[in-house]
């Protein structure tokens, strides 16, 4: 029960912190002091208090977009185990629901973008759907590998089955998979090298350009939702690379939070040391990710 509560609290509260950490890391690399860790929380709070501007072309879809995206992402969070603590919801095939909840969110975000009738947002939507479509196979190959390793079709069992011993057994495969998953993680959350969350050159952006017209509380939802998405995929990633479990549950939670923070730092590092890719390269990288994960499956088979 307490685990469940902690789970929910983490899901609801922690995500913006990751953004803060990433920002701090990048600032550190740039030799700046940077915004405080809690800056994202302030931003969201401020946005919730702001008034909104709506384009005259928009319809209810425009308003529903952020909401549904946020909700579906939160639901996806309920399907994931936080290292060795079973997820609140777990059943055979929940991994499919997991993937499709993201798809649902994406559908709403992109339609909301198209609702404004702005060509920039249309551009962003087109890129978003295309890239995520290419990212789909990578994710599923990874899932197949995990499923084969654990012999089950539920995220909880799949991820909690991982352990040091498993790593020793199928290290190579898992390594390949981790690579693939990291690409997916970055792509899905529109981080560098795929997308730049805080440039303002619309033509090169994907996610940011889709939300150009949102403002006020809805924009807050979007920011929060993006954070949650990063958090959720991060959890998946951390679960794979850090399957440590000390006997006590509290220590596990600590480990988990630590892991997430380290991940955020890693992402920040990547963002600071890498440049943004040219748009045309992105599909190739995503296909490469699918191939990596596919190889990991092959390795598991033999």
């Amino acid at each position, binding site marked *: 029960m307490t685990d469940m509560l902690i789970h929910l609290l983490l899901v609801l509260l922690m995500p913006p912190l990751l953004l803060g950490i990433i920002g701090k890391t990048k600032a550190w690399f740039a030799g700046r002091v940077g915004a405080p860790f809690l800056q994202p929380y302030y931003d969201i709070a401020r946005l919730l208090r702001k008034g909104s501007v709506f384009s*005259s072309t928009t319809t209810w879809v425009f308003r529903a977009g952020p*909401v549904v995206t946020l909700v579906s992402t939160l639901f996806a969070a309920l399907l994931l185990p936080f290292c060795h603590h079973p997820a609140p919801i777990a059943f055979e*095939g929940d991994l499919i629901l997991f993937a499709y909840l993201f798809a649902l969110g994406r559908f709403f975000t992109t339609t909301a973008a198209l609702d404004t009738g702005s060509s920039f947002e249309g551009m962003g939507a087109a890129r978003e759907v295309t890239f995520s479509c290419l990212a789909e196979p990578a994710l599923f190959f990874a899932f197949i590998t995990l499923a084969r390793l654990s012999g089950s079709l539920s995220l909880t069992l799949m991820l909690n089955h991982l352990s040091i011993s498993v790593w020793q057994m199928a290290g190579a495969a898992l390594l390949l998979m981790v690579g693939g998953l990291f690409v997916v993680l970055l792509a899905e959350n529109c981080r560098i090298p795929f997308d730049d969350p805080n440039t303002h050159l619309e033509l090169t952006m994907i996610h940011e350009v889709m939300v150009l017209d949102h403002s006020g509380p809805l924009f807050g939802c979007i920011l929060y939702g993006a954070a949650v998405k990063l958090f959720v995929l991060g959890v998946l990633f951390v679960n794979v690379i850090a399957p440590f479990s000390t006997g006590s549950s509290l220590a596990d939670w600590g480990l988990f939070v630590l892991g997430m923070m380290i991940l955020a730092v890693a992402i920040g590092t990547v963002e600071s040391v890498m440049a943004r890719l040219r748009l045309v390269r992105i599909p190739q990288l995503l296909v490469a990710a699918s191939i990596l994960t596919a190889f990991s499956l092959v390795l598991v088979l033999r």
Partner: protein
Amino acid sequence: MSASTLTPDSVIIAATALIVLAGLAGLIIRPAPLSQKLAAAITLPSAVIGFCAAILMLVHRSDARYVIDWSLPFGPCEIGIDPLSAFFLLPIFLVTFCGTLYALGYWPAARNPATAPGVTFFYGLLPGAMALVVMARNGALLLVSWEIMALSAFFLLITEHTGEEVRKAGSVYLLTTHTGSAALIILFSKLHAATGSFIFPHQGTLAATGQTAALMFILALFGFGAKAGIMPMHFWLPSAHANAPSHASAMMSGVMLKMGIYGILRFLSFCPQKPLWWGGTLLVAGMMSALLGICFAAVQTDIKRLLAYSSIENIGIITTGIGMAMVGEATGNPSLVLLGFSGGLLHLLNHAIFKPLLFFGAGGIIHSTGTRIISRMGGLAKRMGTSALVFFIGSLAIAGLPPLNGFAGEFLLYVGFFREALSPVPVLALGVPALGLVGGMAAITFVKLYGIAFLGAPRSREAAEAHELSGVMIVPMWIMALLCLTGGLIPPLFLLLVQPAVAMLAPAAASGARLPASFSLFPLFGLALITAAAAVWLLTRRAIRRRGAVTAGTWGCGYTAATPRMQYTGAAFSEFWAGVTRSLSRCMTEKPAAGTVAPRTVPFSYNPEETILDRFIQPVLELAGIGCAFIRRLQHGQLHVYMLYIFITLILLTVWVR
């Protein structure tokens, strides 16, 4: 009528007859508007009754057989309704009901006095023929009803035959269906040769083995597959669906394609043992159709062609399910059989709900804007709000997103593939990423369709002048939309209708294996999701209200003189994807370089080609024509040479005989 004769099966047959008769009345009685209303008045209740009766037969899993002496030299004519038939009767009656209602607004006799009677007639004959197809237990009878079905569809298709494109579509369709029927004729002749009668053999009692059985399977796959639109026999489908009146397209795509699936299932049910390669073939063909179908759909510019290609995709998914079941049967894996059949049939039922919905929507758009080109629409959500809403639901459903019915069917197939992934030789595991890709592409397709057609600012004058549809057109769409929600929130309900058919097709598996228990949890999630979304929606709305909201123009990133024509078009949206899959979806894009510093207007054309039709069928026909023209010289008008022909024939025959 005594209680004994009022059995569900007799009711179904009566309903079918009534629907056909209603169509006939619509043809004969004048004035046309009256007859159309009369026909509707007869059809609607009979469709409802038939639907309910079919459901009754399904839940009771009852099986009825009638033998009629029809004096044709094909043995006794047997008509029967078993769970499989009853299951396929559901979409027939459902779409008949909605389509007839929709037609009152979409194709009113008052506005098309010339064509309406014919449309009404064939719109009654088509479902009647299809009902007979699924009820026939005699090869000859099935062929007859099959051809009637095909022909009525043809006549519906050529309703607006003054259009060149329509005529071409009609010819292509007619030729394909006729060739398919030729294969079926051989199939049933072979069956006759094998069993000694045209009566269908009982389940799993077909004594054919080895080559004969293989040949029969191939014939069935070709003959029925051509109708179902399995790749590569799909080339007739897009133009046919695009050029028929929309309620006819809904009937063709929603129901008629499924008749092909029915035929394949029926044939498979005869065979006692099915080699592994049968299942493999079906699986591969299905996957190919799904992937390529949706890949082509994503790049279409014509709303109805897009929907038609997505029909190919969905048929592919259904076929995949059947193939999975076949493979499971061959490898003795009951859970796979169960998941395959259940997933396939469930998706079939779902597709029969959301595809007509979308075609109705498309018809509505065409009705009110007069164009089929997506890039000429836009901003319709503001002008036709209700249709936009139901269309949105349909798009979500067909994209296979939770919590709608499209997800339920694909979920089962996913589970099947994943379970295979745990097996020693997880070849089928490849189905998972494939389905994932299909899902992703479906998202591209329908985001584009809905976003470009309904959202943004009107892209043309017609779109700006669009008007909301009349009630009779909205109501059927609502019915379908609600069914989509029901099927998504309470999949067990639909599963109740699928299970009897599955139990009939694979009794052992149905009793042996079990479906994922999670299905019973779906309602919970669905409701939770919706309520949560609603809650957040209310919160945000309150926040927005409190802080006040102003309306302004779309933020043009500093560019202030933006016009509707600068919006992202459908072509532009899918061009990005088309670029990724250039080699597959061969789109003829002409993009002349702007050239000088001050570019003049440069034309930009973008049209996806019909690969099979343009690159294979047409050239072959051309060649054949040339060859024939060569031989035709024999008829040159020289009488004395004609005499020579006779003389030579005489001599040759005489020499041959001795």
